[in-house]
C-alpha cells in the first residue's frame, strides 16, 4: 500500500459508499448511515495519513482524453491527484469536519423521511469535495466543481415536497451555473494562452500571456467568476440564504465549511496568476470587501436563526476573497478558511440543535431563555460566536485581524470597509445570542425545549476545541508551513491598529446587548435590510423581463419564420408545384408519347450543345 493508493482510496471510498447506499440500503436506516459514516472515517484516516507523511506529488490516474494533434503535439486532459501543502491542509479540514457532521446527522435526521437519500447525497458530496481538493488540473477541478453543485442540489432539495425547498435547490444550481460559465471561459482562456491547465505548471509568463497584463487579468477574472458563484460573492450571493431550506447539517457542511470555501481554495490554487495581475486582484479585493460589508448589514435584519448565520457566512467568505485579493500569499485566505470552517460549522450545528429542541421552529422571535434549557449547546455556541466575532485569543480573531492588518498596509480604503464589517459581526452575533439564548422564553416551544441527544452534542463539543485553538501559533505552524506562503505580520503596524480591532469587537457586542436586552420583538426594523437590499426583486424582474422577452422573441421567430416560412412554406411550394404538374396527366396516351418524344429531343439537344 503506497501513498498514491492511499490518496485514491481516500477519494473513491465515499463514491463507492454513495453507490452502495443508493443500490442496497433503501430499507435499512442503520446500514445507510453506517456506510456513510464509515466512508467519512476512511477519508479521515486517509487524509491524516497523507498529512502526517507530508506527501508531495502528482499522482496521475489516467488520461481522460488523449488526442494527437500532430507529430509532437497532444491534446490531453489528465485525471490525477495533486498532493502538496495546500491540498494537504484543505484535506484535513474537509476530512475532519465531515465525520463529525455525519455523526451529528444520525441524531438530527432520526425522524426524517428520505434517510437513505440524505446519506447518499452526503457521501456523494464528500467524494466531490475531496475531488476538488485533490484535483491536479483546472478541468478536473471543474468536473468536481459541477459534481459538488449537483450534490448541493440534491441535499438542498431534500424536502422537495416543499415548494420553497425545490425552488431554492433550483436557484442554487442555476446561479452557480452562471458563475461556472465564467469559470469555464476562464479555463479555456488560460488553456488557449498557455497550452497547459495543470496547477503545478501555472505560470503567468507562459505562452501567450507573456507581457500581456490585460489578457492575464481577463483570464483570472473569468476564473474568479467561478468563485463568485460558488462562494456566494456579490452579485451571485442570492442562492446561499435560500439554501438554508436544506437540513441543518447540510447547511453546516456544505454551505458554511467546505463547499462554499471551494471558491477560495480555487483562488489559492491559481495564486501565481492572481498575484501577477494587479488589475485582477484589485477586482477580487473590491468584490470581497463589498460582499463582506453588505452581507454584514443584511445579517442584522434577519429573523431566521439560520438566515443570520447564512449572511454571516457570505460576509466571512467576503473576507477570505478580500484576503486573496490582497495578493500577499496563498496562505492568507486559507488561514481564515481554516478557522472559519470550524467555528461556522459549530455555529450551524448548534443552531440545528436549537431547532431540533424547538421542534423545527426557526424564528428567533419565538425563542428565548434557551441557555437554561440547553446548556451544552449554549456553551458550544458561545465558543463559536466569540471566535467568529473576533474575540482576542480565539481562532477567528487571528485570521481576520491578519487580513485586516495586511489591508492597512496595502490598501487603506479596503481596511476601513473591513473594519466596519468586523464591527457588524459581533453585533449581529450578539443579537442572535441575546434573543435566542438569553432573556425569557417567548413561546411554548421555547418553554418546553430540552437538550439534544449526546450523538449531536458530542460533535459540538469536539468542534469547539479547534474553534478556540486553531489560530494559536503552534497550530498555525503545523497546518500552514512556509511552503504555503508567509503568514507574517504585515510590516510595521502602528500600535492603534490592534486597538481598532479590539474596540470593534467590544463596541459591537456592547451595542447589541444594549439594544436587544430581552425585547419582545425586533426594535430595529429596516425595510431595506429586511428585503435584502431588493436584490432578489431586481433579479426576479430582470429574469422575467429580459429573459422572458427574449424567449418571446425566439418563440415568434420559431413559429412564424422557421415553422411558417421555411417548413410549411417549402411544403406548400412543393405541393403547389405538384398541383400544377398534375394537369399534365391528361389521360391521352398519345399526349404522353408526345411528352416522351419531346423529352428525348430535348435530351439530344442538351447532349449536342454541352459538348
Amino acid at each position, binding site marked *: 500500500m503506497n501513498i498514491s493508493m492511499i490518496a485514491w482510496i481516500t477519494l473513491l471510498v465515499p463514491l463507492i459508499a454513495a453507490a452502495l447506499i443508493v443500490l442496497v440500503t433503501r430499507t435499512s436506516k442503520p446500514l445507510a448511515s453506517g456506510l456513510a459514516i464509515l466512508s467519512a472515517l476512511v477519508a479521515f484516516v486517509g487524509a491524516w495519513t497523507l498529512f502526517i507523511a507530508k506527501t508531495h506529488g502528482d499522482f496521475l490516474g489516467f488520461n481522460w482524453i488523449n488526442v494527437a494533434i500532430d507529430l509532437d503535439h497532444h491534446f490531453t486532459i489528465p485525471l490525477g491527484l495533486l498532493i502538496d501543502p495546500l491540498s494537504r491542509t484543505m484535506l484535513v479540514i474537509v476530512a475532519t469536519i465531515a465525520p463529525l457532521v455525519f455523526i451529528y446527522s444520525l441524531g438530527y435526521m432520526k425522524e426524517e423521511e428520505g434517510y437513505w437519500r440524505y446519506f447518499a447525497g452526503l457521501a456523494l458530496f464528500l467524494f466531490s469535495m475531496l475531488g476538488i481538493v485533490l484535483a491536479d488540473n483546472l478541468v478536473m477541478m471543474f468536473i468536481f466543481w459541477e459534481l459538488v453543485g449537483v450534490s448541493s442540489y440534491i441535499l438542498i432539495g431534500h424536502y422537495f415536497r416543499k415548494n420553497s425547498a425545490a425552488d431554492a435547490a433550483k436557484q442554487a444550481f442555476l446561479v452557480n451555473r452562471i458563475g461556472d460559465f465564467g469559470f469555464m471561459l476562464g479555463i479555456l482562456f488560460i488553456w488557449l494562452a498557455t497550452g497547459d491547465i495543470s496547477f503545478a505548471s501555472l505560470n503567468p509568463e507562459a505562452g501567450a500571456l507573456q507581457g500581456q497584463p490585460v489578457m492575464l487579468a481577463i483570464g483570472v477574472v473569468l476564473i474568479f467568476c467561478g468563485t463568485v458563484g460558488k462562494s456566494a460573492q456579490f452579485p451571485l450571493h442570492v442562492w446561499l440564504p435560500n439554501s438554508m431550506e436544506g437540513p441543518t447539517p447540510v447547511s453546516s457542511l456544505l454551505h458554511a465549511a467546505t463547499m462554499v470555501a471551494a471558491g477560495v481554495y480555487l483562488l489559492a490554487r491559481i495564486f501565481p496568476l492572481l498575484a501577477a495581475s494587479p488589475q485582477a486582484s484589485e477586482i477580487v479585493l473590491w468584490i470581497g470587501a463589498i460582499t463582506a460589508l453588505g452581507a454584514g448589514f443584511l445579517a442584522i435584519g434577519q429573523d431566521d436563526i439560520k438566515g443570520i448565520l447564512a449572511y454571516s457566512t457570505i460576509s466571512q467568505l467576503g473576507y477570505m476573497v478580500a484576503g486573496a485579493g490582497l495578493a500577499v500569499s496563498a496562505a492568507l485566505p486559507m488561514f481564515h478558511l481554516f478557522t472559519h470552517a470550524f467555528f461556522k460549522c459549530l455555529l450551524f450545528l448548534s443552531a440545528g440543535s436549537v431547532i431540533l429542541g424547538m421542534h423545527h421552529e426557526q424564528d428567533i422571535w419565538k425563542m428565548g431563555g434557551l441557555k437554561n434549557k440547553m446548556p451544552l449547546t449554549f456553551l458550544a455556541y458561545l465558543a463559536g460566536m466569540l471566535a467568529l466575532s473576533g474575540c482576542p485569543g480565539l481562532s477567528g480573531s487571528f485570521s481576520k485581524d491578519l487580513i485586516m492588518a495586511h489591508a492597512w498596509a496595502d490598501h487603506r480604503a479596503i481596511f476601513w470597509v473591513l473594519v466596519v464589517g468586523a464591527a457588524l459581526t459581533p453585533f449581529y452575533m450578539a443579537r442572535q445570542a441575546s434573543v435566542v439564548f438569553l432573556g425569557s422564553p417567548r413561546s411554548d416551544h421555547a418553554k418546553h425545549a430540552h437538550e439534544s441527544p449526546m450523538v449531536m452534542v458530542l460533535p459540538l463539543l469536539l468542534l469547539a476545541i479547534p474553534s478556540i485553538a486553531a489560530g494559536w501559533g503552534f497550530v498555525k505552524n503545523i497546518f500552514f508551513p512556509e511552503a504555503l506562503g508567509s503568514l507574517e505580520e504585515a510590516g510595521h503596524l502602528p500600535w492603534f491598529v490592534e486597538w481598532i480591532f479590539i474596540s470593534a469587537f467590544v463596541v459591537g457586542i456592547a451595542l447589541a446587548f444594549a439594544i436587544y436586552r430581552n425585547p419582545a420583538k425586533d426594535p430595529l426594523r429596516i425595510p431595506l435590510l429586511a428585503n435584502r437590499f431588493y436584490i432578489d426583486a431586481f433579479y426576479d424582474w430582470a429574469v422575467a423581463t429580459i429573459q422572458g422577452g427574449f424567449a418571446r422573441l425566439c418563440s415568434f421567430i420559431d413559429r412564424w419564420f422557421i415553422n411558417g416560412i421555411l417548413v410549411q412554406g417549402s411544403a406548400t411550394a412543393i405541393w403547389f408545384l405538384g398541383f400544377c404538374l*398534375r*394537369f399534365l*396527366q*391528361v*389521360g*391521352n*396516351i*398519345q399526349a404522353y*408519347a*408526345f411528352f416522351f*418524344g419531346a423529352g428525348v429531343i430535348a435530351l439530344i439537344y442538351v447532349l449536342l450543345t454541352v459538348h
Partner: protein
Amino acid sequence: MPTLANYLLASGILFAIGLGGVMLRRSIIVIFMSLEMMLSAANLSLVAFSRYGLVNGHQNFNAQILVFFIITVAAAEVAVGLAIIVSLYRARQTTHVEDLDTLKF
C-alpha cells in the same frame, strides 16, 4: 458504294416515321405496328455498324447477336402486348386511343 452514313440515314428516317406513327395515329393496333417499325430501324443501325466496324477482318458479330436478341424480345413483347389489347377491347369495346383516357389525375 453506300457509305455507313447512308445506312444510318435510312435507319434514322424509318425510326422517325415510326415515331410519327406512334404520336399521330389513333388506332392502337397501328400504333403498335409503328412501334415494331422503330425496333427494326434500330436493328438496321446495328447491322450496319457490324459490317462497317470490322473486328479481326470479319464483321463484328456481337452486334448481330444483339440484333438476334432484339428480335426475340420484340416477338415476346408483341405477343404480350396484343394479349393486353385484346383484353382492353373486351373491356372497353374500342380501339380508339382517345377513348382510353382514365389514366389521369
